[in-house]
């Protein structure tokens, strides 16, 4: 998984062998990329809402408030440097997910229960 980085934003992206249109000389070091997670209201998980650039963690939280919660979309914000995220590889046929593919007995529908048994 080492060839994966999260520098592309909105989740981890492989930069290796991904051609990019380099517009011109980049004159300034860019602020690092952060991924933003917002808890919409009490009782819900934090959900990934997007990304943004900020010089440091505290600024990332402030920017996240302005960019992603202008209309009461959240009660709590998490930010994390995108390059700190470790991700599985993208392919749906990836062997990482293979072990769950052949275990149908993990699902409730695997089991036949007589139709007249209530509450099951």
């Amino acid at each position, binding site marked *: 998984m080492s060839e994966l980085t999260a520098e*592309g*934003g909105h*989740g981890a992206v492989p930069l290796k062998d991904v051609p*990019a249109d380099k*517009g*011109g000389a*980049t004159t300034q070091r860019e*602020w690092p990329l952060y991924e933003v997670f917002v808890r919409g209201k009490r009782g819900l998980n934090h959900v990934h809402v997007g*990304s943004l650039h900020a010089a*440091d963690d505290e600024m990332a939280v402030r920017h996240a408030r302005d960019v992603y919660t202008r209309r009461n979309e959240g009660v709590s914000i998490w930010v994390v440097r995108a390059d700190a995220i470790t991700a599985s590889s993208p392919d749906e046929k990836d062997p990482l997910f293979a072990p769950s593919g052949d275990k149908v007995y993990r699902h409730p529908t695997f089991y036949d229960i007589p139709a007249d048994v209530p509450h099951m």
Partner: protein
Amino acid sequence: MTATHHETHDEPQAVFDATIERGDRIEPRDWMPEGYRKTLVRQIAQHAHSEIIGMQPEGGWITRAPSLRRKAILLAKVQDEAGHGLYLYSAAETLGVSRQELTELLLAGRQKYSSIFNYPTLSYADVGTIGWLVDGAAICNQVPLCRTSYGPYGRAMIRICKEESFHQRQGYELLSTMMRGTDEQRAMVQESVDRFWWPALMMFGPPDADSPNTAQSMAWGVKRNTNDDLRQRFVDMSVPQAEALGVTFPDPELRWNDERGHYDFGTPDWDEFMQVVQGNGPCNAQRIAHRRRAHDDGAWVREAALAFADKQAAAVGEGR
């Protein structure tokens, strides 16, 4: 797309094609054809630049808004446009380009933004007209893009569409208020609508016959409707809104066609459109000069923030 067709391709191409065929989304780490990636970078960047440049025509009216209420609304709207630009830049960044690169391409004139923002805002009524017609046209364009095949772009569009509705309604409400005012105010609204109607129709891009990229973009599910379809939809929506407002559109050919079930309308001046796209519109130079000045004036802030972050990080390192 038949099975035989797939077999002639490498496996990743077949997986990509099948994903599009199923109506599933392409996500950043998926393999994608280079042309698909380039089309998306171009389209999303252009869209992001439009949001950022789009702050200028209305931004100039913030200090001159006639009441605190209108000023607060306009400030919120212009801030939204900045937010929309940021959502879109981060969607583009998932494709392996950086926001800084895209900004530099914009400032170098190598990437475009919507031609509508090269028209001036001469009266306060223009704030209303932009909300109603320009944001209205943008909504027509953007709602189908919520279902675009590239996941991050579609997600950005969903957020944007939710917020655009406020933009359009505040504009229409502003114009309605002026229409209930004096004759002079009504004339101001009509004059503004007269100036913006044709440029708003041009926002959908050239006619389908002259839009060589449309077919490929639709095959990839990047685009969901043709330029002409969306333009027609916009005209059909706008005419009853204009009637309710009490204004007319400057098009003698505009009339209901019972047979088609749509409004017929005249042809925009495509020569003017090409001139504006090529940089010769009324405000092209001014818009880019302003954007460049803002970028340069902000450089010290970006540098100072980084220097502060570096210093803090070093202090934490020493304390360990």
